[in-house]
């Protein structure tokens, strides 16, 4: 894959990440910030996939896999916290 496609994909995903950060900073309620962090975690897996294509190393795909798991657990924990309960409920 040539450099131009990598640059286009990286710039597009960066635009998405900045839109998510805008919502995380501006969001009027904590629920908006939680949604934004959840979406940002999924976008980072896309970044890892683009880095895999750019470098040809499978290391970045392993990082993306771990990131997907951690983003899922973090989203569930934040949702539980948003509900106003303790984590063992």
């Amino acid at each position, binding site marked *: 894959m040539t450099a131009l496609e990598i640059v286009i*994909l990286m710039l597009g995903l960066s635009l998405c990440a900045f839109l998510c950060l805008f919502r995380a900073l501006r969001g009027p309620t904590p*629920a908006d910030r939680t*949604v934004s962090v959840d979406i940002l975690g999924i976008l980072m897996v896309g970044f890892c996939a683009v880095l895999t294509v750019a470098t040809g190393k499978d290391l970045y795909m392993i990082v993306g896999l771990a990131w997907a798991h951690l983003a899922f657990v973090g989203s569930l924990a934040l949702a539980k916290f948003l509900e106003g309960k303790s984590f063992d409920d």
Partner: protein
Amino acid sequence: MIDFSNPLHLLAYVVMAAGLAFDIVGCIGLVRLPDVYNRLQAATKCVTLGTFLILLGVVLRFGFGSMGWKALLCLWFIAMTSPTAAHAIARAAHRAGYPLWKGSVEDRYAEDDEGRKIAPAAAADRPKEA
């Protein structure tokens, strides 16, 4: 720029471009829509499909090697867990009593027995009709 010799690589480019388009549309929805539930709805569906397509592009580009199988595993995991996390966030936001947009016409979870039992005060002061 693009080598048209291998049709699978060309298909990988097209799929990854479609995934990027879905990501951008979903994040624009995250910024532009009025309340928590609308934002969650737009962003989660579009960004999940977008990342799914980008990972599918990796599978098409590299085949079933050491990268393709990991991308396939990651793709399956994203498709399973991202709607689950979004559902958990929406349920938590509703039970914590975050209000709907004033143009919303229906709130089935507040009419439901479970929703009324959990947060009666929050369900009571929510507008019934737009």
